[in-house]
């Protein structure tokens, strides 16, 4: 196997036309503003920033299970070996350089990895950071008694050797290309603290210690988390003395606090789409739409007697007025995307046939496939009625409107669809994971960390309802897709991987295991004068570079 192009595989997003036009409009504006005012960061950490979040970060051990908002805190307190910049380039953090074949970091067969580490890093309590910490962190993830959040990739590690305090080497059972991307979101934990604790699960729960740009300050449970500048941070920054993350559960209230100046920035779930237009005109505030990798899709259960027919899925896709949904319901915020990959991904196939809303075409497809109009204007074939439920989480008014719109247009092709919405904890329980739904309206991503590999979602061996261990809740089974996915995982050559994922997107576009509607954009806002904010589609939260944020001096 050749790994010669592996350096390129670190490019998770295409740098160029698309990126510039899309996600990085904000970046350009920012660079422009910086040039105009020639702002520079302060010499010593100065001032504070208050960031509003609509969920509360509660999990502070980065190797345990957490949701997006928990990672917001992990990014500030802890460090990964490397992380991904907005253009997809991997940037070394605790590692001295990114391991590739050329520098001997990854062996030709992809099985032996060697990582050289920085020698100037200390934990927040002053203890030096060494390769033993990396070894400990990776072994903790695989420890059967530890409630690790995610073992994907890590479980392939066979043996870890610390060659010297600043170099570590490990061997893997099989080559696994997405592991580079997964490590970009794997934060290292302090061995000396967890080993000394009674219980590794609670060791970092109240007073996390990391190597990151901010140190733990205080937490007011249910209200806020205060972080302080780590003045001994090994990288650039931090330029802020304090960062406060404030939990505001209600989105309208979050927006009200931002509007009234109580918050300096609202990122992540941010500002609801219906306030987008109004928010852009607010004086003293900068509000913009930023790209997000999540896709809004209708997820069909392919074991459903009607939905297993590909003609039905094609007809349903044809009969969704995506344009109207985006324009009329989401205030033109989101962007069409018929692929499972985000438009910014280096693996995105932009040659896929676009979506066309066409009721007649949908009716033609169903007629052709033998679905005949039966009683009460509902089509039937071999005794199966074209009737099913569509479910989503309750309490999302815009999504409920989108459901209504879809049901309307689907009725015109003889499909009888009922809404069956339930609270999030119910939807995402067995209902989702054991594929008990008919169709789900859901926003989700089909990749592995920042890597375009969707095998966890698409492999036929990844169906939990059929004893699999992945997240293929549609229960999609396709032999060609399986072969492509398996090749993609073990291939380090970027050009070949791109071919693989392009073909996979063609298959998915044709077979519609998921019915795509749009790719998300989020509305994020900040006060004028807060410099350094750069959206990053390859990070799980746009506070990823908070260390570089600072207030403009007047």
């Amino acid at each position, binding site marked *: 196997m050749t790994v010669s192009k592996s350096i390129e595989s670190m490019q998770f997003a295409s740098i160029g036309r698309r990126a510039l036009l899309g996600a990085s409009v904000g970046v350009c504006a920012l660079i422009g503003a910086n040039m105009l005012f020639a702002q520079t960061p302060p010499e010593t950490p100065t001032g*504070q920033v*208050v960031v509003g979040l609509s969920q*509360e970060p*509660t*999990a*502070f*051990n980065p190797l345990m*299970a957490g*949701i*997006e908002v928990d990672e917001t805190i992990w990014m500030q307190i802890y460090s990964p070996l490397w992380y991904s910049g907005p253009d997809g380039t991997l940037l070394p953090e605790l590692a001295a350089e990114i391991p590739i074949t050329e520098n001997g970091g990854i062996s030709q067969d992809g099985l032996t990895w060697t990582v050289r580490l920085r020698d100037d890093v200390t934990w927040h309590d002053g203890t030096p950071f060494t390769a033993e910490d990396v070894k400990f962190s990776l072994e903790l993830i695989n420890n059967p*008694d530890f*409630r*690790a*959040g*995610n*073992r*994907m990739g890590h479980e392939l590690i066979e043996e870890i050797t610390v060659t010297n305090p600043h170099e570590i080497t490990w061997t893997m059972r099989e080559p696994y290309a997405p592991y580079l991307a997964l490590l970009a979101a794997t934060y290292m934990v302090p061995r000396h603290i967890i080993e000394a604790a009674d219980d590794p699960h*609670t060791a970092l*729960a109240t007073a996390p210690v990391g190597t990151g740009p901010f140190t733990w300050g205080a937490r*007011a*449970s*249910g*209200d*806020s988390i*205060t972080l302080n500048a780590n003045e001994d941070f090994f990288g650039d920054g931090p330029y802020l003395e*304090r960062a*406060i993350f*404030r939990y*505001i*559960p*209600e989105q*309208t*209230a*979050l927006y*009200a*606090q931002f*509007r*009234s100046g*109580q918050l300096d920035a609202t990122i992540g779930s941010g500002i609801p789409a219906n306030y987008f237009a109004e928010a852009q005109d607010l004086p003293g505030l900068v509000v913009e739409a930023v790209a997000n990798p999540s896709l809004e899709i209708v997820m069909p259960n392919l074991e459903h007697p009607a939905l297993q027919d590909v003609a039905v899925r094609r007809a349903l896709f044809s009969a969704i007025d995506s344009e109207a949904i985006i324009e009329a319901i989401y205030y033109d915020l989101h962007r069409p995307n018929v692929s499972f990959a985000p438009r910014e991904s280096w693996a995105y196939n932009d040659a896929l046939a676009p979506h066309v809303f066409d009721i007649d075409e949908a009716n033609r497809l169903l007629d052709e496939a033998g679905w005949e109009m039966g009683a009460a204007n509902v089509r039937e074939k071999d005794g199966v009625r074209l009737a099913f439920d569509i479910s989503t989480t309750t309490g999302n008014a815009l999504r409920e409107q989108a459901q209504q719109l879809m049901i309307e247009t689907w009725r015109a092709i003889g499909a009888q669809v009922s809404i069956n919405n339930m*609270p*999030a*904890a*119910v*939807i*995402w*329980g*067995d*209902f*989702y*994971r054991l594929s008990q739904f008919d169709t789900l309206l859901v926003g*989700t*991503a*089909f990749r592995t*960390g920042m890597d375009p590999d969707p095998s*966890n*979602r698409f492999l036929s061996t*990844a169906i939990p309802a059929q004893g699999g*261990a*992945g*997240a293929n809740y549609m229960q999609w089974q396709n032999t060609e897709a399986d072969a492509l996915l398996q090749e993609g995982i073990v291939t380090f050559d970027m050009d070949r991987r791109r071919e693989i994922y392009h073909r996979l997107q063609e298959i998915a576009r044709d077979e519609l295991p998921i019915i795509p509607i749009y790719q998300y954009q989020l509305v994020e806002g900040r006060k004028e004068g807060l410099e350094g904010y750069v959206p990053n589609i390859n990070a799980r939260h746009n506070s990823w570079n908070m260390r570089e944020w600072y207030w403009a001096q007047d």
Partner: protein
Amino acid sequence: MTRFLIGRLGQSLLLLWIVSVVGFAILHLAPGGPMSQFAESGNMTQADMDRMAEQLGLNRPLPVQYAQWLTNIVAGDWGVSYRDQQPVLRIIFSHLGATFELMLTSTVIAIFIGVWVGVLGAVWRYSLFDSVATIFAMVALSIPTFWFGLVVIWYFSIELGWLPAGSRMTPGDGSFANRFHHLIGPALVLALVSTAIWSRYMRSSMLDVINQDYIRTARSKGISEWRILTRHALRNALLPMITILGLQLPNLLSGALVTETVFSWPGMGRLFLDSINYRDYPTVMGILMFTAILVLIGNLIADILYGLADPRIGGRAR
């Protein structure tokens, strides 16, 4: 009194046990579970979630899980939150202050205004004041708190800029003035509804009293109306209010779900809602038991106070 107390304690323990069984069953039988939120993001595999469920003991039979929980709580171990990895009691106590601050303020406002509106409404029955107060109370009781809270935020925080749009204090500023400033909005919203309730209770209680014979007797003796009101009528009319206050006591510490959410108030109501959404079983059970204990204590205190204030009841209690 001792026998009364022992009897009540026995009853209370039985009630607590029933609450725990019912609460545990409903909570665990409700669809979904602590792994749901991880499934949503698609970042965790089914293997990861199955392993975690196994490690947390979620796959064991429900009676076994309940027995384990009961054994622990009897021994004083309220468990560790799935969400925070912290002891449940510590989490509950960390939210009590905020809730107590908010609920006490709004209850004091509500009692003070409500009692007087009720008294005057009864005294001047069918007057313009009474009609306005009655209409106001009905409107206040009918307004959804959620909507009213948002209106208050919109008008006083965004349009006028007088009040902060939520939260308990400005970060880095915990001064009394700052806390008070943040308290005004949510306390007024909460007080609106309870003022209405208190005024209605007080009005009917007062009406009962002022039509009694002894009031007529007092009046015939030539005692001034003010003196009749404060010395004779109010004292008796306030008696039933003790029971209501006793029933209100648990609210002081259990919080207000809606108002705390709208005003981002880090109290018990908010914690309860978040824990339920997360299916954080140990915390939800902890809050449930904590609130149940408060209700029982509140009732007990009301009974004792009532006994002290009214000799007729006191005699029976003994």
